[in-house]
């Protein structure tokens, strides 16, 4: 991570087998596209195995929140197995209910308004965790005598 720039990792399972996976993916994309585009960074989970040392450094380089579609918690377990301890973890099935989360995966072409609301709700939960992890990380940096700054990284204050 470039000095002076704070980014938080959000890693979703993007599971292909259930609705929870679709929601984990889209809620994570909402963080990247809309909620905290300048502070959110992600990685494709399978890259921990298919990639190299740099990819496996992800959770060490960024405080990381995992977003799982079901209680198998694949994103959390794989991140901790190959990369590092996660700062927080979210299980979509605890928010929208196990039965709904484990219903068949859905194409984004067929999303209903109700499912879009679920995505927004999950994204809000990620946002809440994100803000806590961010604040805790900044406080840790301050305590260790480092000067935290978030933004574009060019020191312009943006």
């Amino acid at each position, binding site marked *: 991570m470039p000095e002076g720039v704070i980014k938080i990792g959000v890693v*979703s*399972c*993007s*599971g*292909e*087998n*259930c609705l929870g*996976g679709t929601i984990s*993916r*889209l809620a*994570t*994309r*909402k963080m990247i*596209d809309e909620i905290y585009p300048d502070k959110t960074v*992600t*990685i*494709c*989970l*399978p*890259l*921990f*195995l*298919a*990639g190299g040392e740099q990819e496996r450094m992800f959770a060490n380089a960024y405080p990381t929140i995992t977003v799982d579609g079901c209680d*198998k918690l*694949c*994103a959390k*377990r*794989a991140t901790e*197995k190959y990369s590092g301890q996660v700062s927080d973890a979210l299980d979509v099935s605890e928010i929208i209910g196990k039965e709904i989360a484990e219903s*068949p*995966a*859905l*194409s*984004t*072409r067929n999303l209903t308004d109700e499912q879009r609301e679920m995505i927004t709700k999950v994204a809000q939960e990620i946002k809440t965790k994100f803000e806590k992890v961010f604040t805790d990380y900044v406080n840790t940096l301050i305590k260790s005598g480092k000067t935290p700054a978030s933004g574009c990284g060019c020191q312009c204050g943006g």
Partner: protein
Amino acid sequence: MFSKIKVIPCSGMGKVYGLLARESALRVTQNLRPQECETMCLAYLVTGDQEAREKIEGKNCITLDGCPAMCAAKNVEMAGGIVVDKMKMIDIMKEYKGAKPGTATELTEEGWQIVDEIAERIAAKVKKLAKEEE
């Protein structure tokens, strides 16, 4: 006994290619050839769980990858799956020069049309493989 062919996309998070792979896999497994193929969570394979490995070990798989990192193909091979075809979206998109398929979050109409065409190709491969297995 006939075992459904696994169609496994990378579902890459960073670029539209990952979404093209994901949506093509869902289209073929849910709509075009549901009796002959199915998908499974790549993330589950990544965990290395024995149960996940058992689901794929020795099974014929078609992998759909967005980028040259080939995450789906590599992870399926590591889990013991037999990768009979590796499709790479970034290469397929060279056939659609100038197309604007959308983003990693959502596809455009053009993107959906491309998904439908890719899914038809996968369906033809599935049909052929299923016939060979009979």
